[in-house]
């Protein structure tokens, strides 16, 4: 996934682990496991291009990369630092609706501080903050106005868009947070229609 001519010394964590910047947890783990066996002096021909010290340095760098990218919070921080350093996202998502790596149940429970998960404006906001995403940034990323995202989180019925739009917004929002878009939009809509939002 190297996109420009640079050696391992200059490569970022994603490039070191040879995955795209939108890779899933599973993709990152598989790449790391495979690479760990490659950067060993037992691999035939490894010392043609690298000295034994360099092989060791590459191993260390890959460990560091994996430590950061395996955890959504440190990954998010790393992404932000990279954006700051380069003034642009490391690799712009191929699609305007960026798909964040899916959160597992454990992470969701941790973020919500609850065992029961049900999707509401409040829980969406909690996940967003857990991922250290600010609302302006997210609005830009998924191309939904900040005003609408705030209305969704606040469940401000009057400020919410018409049902046809809202459904799509919820799905994009969920996707961007690494949540199940269908379940989020269904539960959210059921909940706010009980609060007086007309779904038709």
């Amino acid at each position, binding site marked *: 996934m190297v996109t420009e001519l640079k050696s391992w010394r200059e490569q970022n964590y994603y490039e*070191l682990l*040879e995955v795209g910047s939108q890779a899933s947890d*599973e993709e990152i783990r598989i790449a790391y496991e495979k690479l760990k066996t490659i950067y060993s002096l037992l691999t035939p021909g490894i010392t043609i291009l690298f000295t034994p010290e360099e092989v060791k340095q*590459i191993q260390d760098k890959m460990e560091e990369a994996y430590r950061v990218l395996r955890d959504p919070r440190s990954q998010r921080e790393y992404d932000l630092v990279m954006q700051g350093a380069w003034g642009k996202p490391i690799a712009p998502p191929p699609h305007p609706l960026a798909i964040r790596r899916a959160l597992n149940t454990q992470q969701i429970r941790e973020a919500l501080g609850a065992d029961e998960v049900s999707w509401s404006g409040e829980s969406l906001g909690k996940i967003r903050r857990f991922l250290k995403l600010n609302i302006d940034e997210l609005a830009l990323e998924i191309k939904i106005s900040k005003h609408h995202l705030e209305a969704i989180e606040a469940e401000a019925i009057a400020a919410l868009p018409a049902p046809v739009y809202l459904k799509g917004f919820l799905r994009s929002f969920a996707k961007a947070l690494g949540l199940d878009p269908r379940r989020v939009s269904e539960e959210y809509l059921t909940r706010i229609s009980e609060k007086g939002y007309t779904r038709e």
Partner: protein
Amino acid sequence: METEKKDTEKKEKHIWAIAGGKGGIGKSFVTANLGIALCERGKKVVVVDLDLGGANLHTLLGITRPPLSLDDFIRKGMRSIKGILAETGIPNLQLIAGVQDMLTLSNPKPRDKQKIIHHIASLNADHIILDLGTGISPHIFDFFLISDTGIFLITPERTSLENAYQFMRGVFFHRWMTLTTNKKVKKLIETAMDVNNAAGIRTPVDLLAHVENLDKEAKKIFADEANGFKPRLIINQARNRKEAELGFAIRSVCRKYFGIDLGFLGHILYDYNVYSSVQRGRAFFSDYPSSDVAACIRDIAAHVSDGRSLEWSLS
């Protein structure tokens, strides 16, 4: 997880160059049989014997030397390369036979080389496969560079790897040399070509950093050119799974050292029958169409024709 990724656009005609640097690793064997496997998929294929030092691609195709070859094309001043296209007995597979007389063409004159290059590009087929022959020299780089995609053939032997890496390094420097007129930059590239140069330039990435200090524009041109460089890799003569999986290690090493993406097309097993078919002067595919080796080559042909390469597991 997806095991394959798409990385070349489909297009009407595709020129592939089979390279490796080292002799006897199976470049001609792979050129011939990959050609046959692509024909099985309904493609029209031309294989070109560019081994100017030891043309024998016809033998690997199981035919005798065609009456006309690149030799005639150059020496008799033929107008079109179509005049030397030879049938192979395999439907839709044609051969441009190589040079018999080593003295005239093993080191071709620039004008002759240009003529060959120009005419190969005009051939009409779905796939054109160039058997580049053995060696790591400027004229082989030139032939390598007319291809849309270069394929490095590597066997698990350390010497094969060494030659392939030397070839890759050489191709970078050779190509960049043609992209600049700046004398200082040219001199620097020349220095870098010597592996043990005093400037400590080991890799193309190192060289780029030095070029940047001399000529920013040249650096940009070089980098752009390098970003488009996406060769492929085939492991030949793998004796077990471990040796086949060496392809993933080579791919990774190239990413980390050269900063290039080397798509892994697949592996071909070692099989004594390859040797025996060569000894009988037969095309391997004709005699062993249901062998494991033939299956390996068909997998590679599938990747070649749909522009995909392997992710992290063998097919």
